[in-house]
């Protein structure tokens, strides 16, 4: 790596030199642009994207202050995790999903879990509507309200609400990350998705695989399955809520 950067890290970790700290923050600030742009994908339109870089800067500063070069982890990888975590934590505290929609989503999630336990398989939409005391259209309208195509939604599904680690995350083979506070990264999330996909219904399995593993847009998935994009979005929301229930369960 670059000898000048190594010297800056040396100056900062040796005696907390404020000038070295400021230069390190400036040097790595571009990572915030990269991460904020990607976390913004798929967020509901009421979320102010321009604020994501402010939240991200806190994550970068936190990363510079906590980084220990002796651990052998590249700073970029460590910082990207912290920047992402800082943006997502802030979005969650600001209710990136409005409270009324969130409580409906929670009802759907609990109904999915109850039905799954009772039936021993992933429930269909009619069964789910019945459990919720709604007709099919009303249930689909509820699913349409919850936009879950972003990195934030998946992080929330995998990480759960509170800081307690969910049981499924602990079962990941290589959680040997050097940083105990590290969040689940993308590769791990996809592994988690892959393990639970088999328990979803056929239609849900196709949507999850075509979106997360084949990289198609919801409209393209609609073309493949012969349904409308809004139906794909509903099926996707149901799958992510089911995933959340399995991971938390």
């Amino acid at each position, binding site marked *: 790596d*670059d000898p*000048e*950067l190594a010297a*800056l890290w040396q100056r900062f970790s040796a005696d907390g030199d404020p000038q070295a700290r*400021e*230069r*390190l*923050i*400036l*040097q790595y*600030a*571009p990572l*915030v*642009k*990269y*991460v*904020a*742009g*990607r*976390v*913004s*994908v*798929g967020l509901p339109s009421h979320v102010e*994207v*321009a604020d994501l*870089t*402010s939240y*991200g*800067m*806190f994550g970068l*500063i936190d990363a510079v202050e906590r980084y220990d070069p002796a651990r052998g982890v*590249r700073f*970029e*990888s460590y910082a*990207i995790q912290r920047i*992402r975590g800082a943006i997502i934590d802030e979005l969650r505290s600001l209710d990136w999903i409005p409270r009324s929609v969130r409580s409906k989503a929670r009802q759907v999630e609990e109904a999915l879990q109850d039905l799954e336990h009772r039936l021993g398989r992933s429930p269909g939409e009619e069964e789910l509507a019945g459990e919720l005391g709604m007709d099919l259209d009303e249930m689909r309208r509820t699913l349409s309200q919850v936009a879950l*195509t*972003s*990195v934030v939604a998946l992080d929330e599904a995998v990480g759960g609400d509170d800081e307690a680690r969910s049981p499924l995350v602990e079962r990941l083979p290589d959680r040997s990350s050097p940083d105990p506070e590290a969040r689940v*990264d*993308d*590769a791990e999330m996809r592994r988690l998705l892959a393990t639970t*996909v088999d328990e979803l219904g056929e239609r849900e*399995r*196709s949507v999850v*695989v*075509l*979106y*997360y*593993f*084949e*990289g*198609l*847009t*919801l409209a*393209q998935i609609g*073309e*493949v*399955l*012969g349904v409308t994009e809004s139906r794909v979005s509903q099926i996707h929301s149901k799958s992510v809520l089911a995933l959340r229930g399995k991971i938390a369960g």
Partner: protein
Amino acid sequence: AAEVRAARDECRAEEAQLSYLRRLLQARLDLVRAEQRRRREGDGSTEALSERLATLLADAPPASRREARAVSVDPPATHMRRAEDRLASDATLARVPDLDEDALARLASELADREQEISRRRRALLDRLDRLQEELVARYRDGGTAAVDAIV
């Protein structure tokens, strides 16, 4: 469809690397230009470095919003190995406070040239990626659920 998928996966891996590089170059360019402005106009700003940086790093709303697709935030696997990517990852930014006007101007024009080149390559790559994805969509659609089951 296997060979189309292989070509698509290769495209996606290269696009992830290029898009990462592009964003770092754009940010460096914007921070160097801001430093040039600051020196010309005098440093009236009392804001903390982190707030100034946050504003400089934010994107303008794009002309056309793209449809949501699954993105990975992890840095691409083949992280800046090539010598050509030094411009996006060496200690340039840490040195900006020490550089004189001429050095800053040279750096800004070098970064602008490189960003244009990378954005051009990325545009071509995104076009190719989208063509491959459209081809796969057609094959999956025509192949029915069997085609989808083959990958699921």
